[in-house]
């Protein structure tokens, strides 16, 4: 039956063509001599830490092209789940590991070390046309964002005398993000406690868009997004009880911008740390991160602090 043969041939050709596309990229895995590092390093975790880790992985490619470094963005919690199952070598985290996650690691016999890699500042932002705010206190922020404010604090005038009698429009990250967890903990005193009637988006660019087009808007997100959108937004200084501090590279790094700055981490699995390529990668990470952190919008730790992290890591590497 000619017709059928042709049809089958036709299907085979389509599939064949398509699979050729995939196969052209076959690489020879056996290349590489004794000295070059090989293997693979799986990293997953926080989307906040991702830009740093991605940049380091990119640079690491230059010195160790045979090592396959992959980075995922399952979020801090999702990353720790995989880490506790021994599925990843390194976990990116925008908060310290929780007790529950520690237990999960212990159950599976996974040891780890926590390394601080940079600081992230949370910025409170308003529209550039907003001329009545020069700073907000932590109490005022709490008054705006706490759960009890829902449906009650609806106007600027309720926050401080002299503010206009206009509706306030709030923007913030979605409840699944580590940024939200951190902000609520720092401002409202309890992680995950905030009013629900605000515009939430996991995509910070949406928040930038919202605040920059709304004179009566107010929102918060990572300092990196402000740095990229300086012309569209106005930064609000925060008074945490010791005077008004505006978040800058300097105030975040020296710890005066409180309570809205936090350290971010990577966690290294002890089994993975037995592998040469992982040790090389982590050392490379700590060496390069001061420079990279600035470049992707985060704030480097003081140099002495990095030296401590290197020491901590080297003490952690299992001796054979």
């Amino acid at each position, binding site marked *: *039956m000619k*017709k*059928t043969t042709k*049809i089958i041939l*036709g*299907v085979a050709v*389509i*599939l064949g063509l*398509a*699979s050729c*596309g*995939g196969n052209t*990229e*076959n*690489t020879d*895995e056996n290349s590489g001599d004794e000295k070059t590092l090989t293997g*693979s390093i*799986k990293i*997953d975790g926080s*989307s906040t830490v*991702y*830009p740093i*880790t*991605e*940049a380091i*992985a*990119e640079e690491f*490619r230059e010195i160790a092209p045979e090592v*396959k*470094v*992959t*980075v*995922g*963005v*399952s979020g801090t919690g999702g990353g720790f789940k995989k880490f506790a199952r021994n*599925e990843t070598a390194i976990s990116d985290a925008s908060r310290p590991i929780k007790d529950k996650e520690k237990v999960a690691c212990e159950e599976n016999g996974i040891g780890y070390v926590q390394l601080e890699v940079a600081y992230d500042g949370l910025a409170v932002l308003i529209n550039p046309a907003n001329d009545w705010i020069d700073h907000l206190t932590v109490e005022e922020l709490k008054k705006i964002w706490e759960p009890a404010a829902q449906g009650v604090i609806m106007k600027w005038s309720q926050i401080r005398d002299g503010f206009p009698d206009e509706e306030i429009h709030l923007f913030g990250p979605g409840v699944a993000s580590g940024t939200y967890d951190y902000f609520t903990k720092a401002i409202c005193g309890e992680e995950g406690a905030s009013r629900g009637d605000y515009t939430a988006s*996991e*995509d*910070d*660019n949406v928040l930038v868009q919202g605040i920059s087009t709304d004179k009566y808007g107010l929102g918060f997100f*990572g300092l*990196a*997004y402000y*740095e*990229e*959108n300086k012309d569209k937004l106005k930064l609000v200084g925060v008074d945490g009880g010791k005077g008004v501090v505006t978040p800058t590279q300097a105030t975040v790094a020296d710890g005066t911008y409180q309570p809205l700055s936090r350290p971010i981490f990577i966690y290294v699995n002890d089994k993975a740390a037995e592998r040469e390529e992982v040790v090389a990668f982590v050392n490379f990470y700590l060496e390069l991160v001061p420079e*990279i952190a600035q*470049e*992707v*919008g985060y704030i480097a730790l003081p140099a002495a602090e990095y030296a401590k992290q290197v020491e901590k890591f080297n003490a952690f590497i299992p001796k054979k």
Partner: protein
Amino acid sequence: MTNAQKNRIIDKSFQVFGIVCTFFGLAILAILIYNIVIEGAARIDWDFMKNLPSRRPQKAGIFTAVMGTIWVLVLTTLISFPIAVGAGIYLEEYAKKTKLASLLEINIANLAGVPSIIYGLLGLEIFVRIFGLGGSVLAGSLTLSLLILPIIIVATREALKAVPSSIKDASMAMGASKWQTIWNQTLPASIGGVLTGVILAISRAIGETAPLIVVGALAYVPFAPSSPMDEFTVMPIQIFNWVSRPQHGFSVNAAAAIIVLLLITFIMNGIAVYFRNKWQKKIKW
């Protein structure tokens, strides 16, 4: 106003309403494409196609994402095509109209409406963990295959149904067995419809992000998969990742990657239309 006039007005206004409805979707698509082309078209060049992911928007490319997408596409097709067509043939040609068959039918129709994230969770538990495939291309492809199986099965059945029963009866009357009838008459006559279903389902699969993220597709993968067991990323994940970055350069990249993804989808749909027309014309009884 007479009744006839009134009716004419109603008639006319419904026509206008219909036209508005028709153009609504098209207009949205046109706006989307216009915006994206304005923002991203200039960014597409050979470097963009062959570069690896990077923190510098100007240096970043979609090579590994495109390769990942092609791998997933091919594997998903290879897995889902035979299974779905086989199931479709069974249900349409062999299955007796029993309670079990109608139960199967209802379930398949329902499966087509299950949110894709659910398939992702299923794939994570079964393929990634129980089968131990890890976050590999194969695990992702199996998951997407599950996702599109019901769609292809339904399309296959519709295509088989469209073959006139007189042809089947004639074939049987000539002494052909059931399988001979299906292989020589029913399938060739319906293959255009079956393939259309397959390619449309695959087009849907390449746009899926959620199930693949759950299964373990990664954001930063600096190498193209070289076997079904390698880690991978796909274009929608790359686009999503870029859209959420603060630097403006990345949103340009995202727009450019969307153009490439749209092109791939349009080409796939084009192929579907081509084969459908080609094979439908050939069938002459």
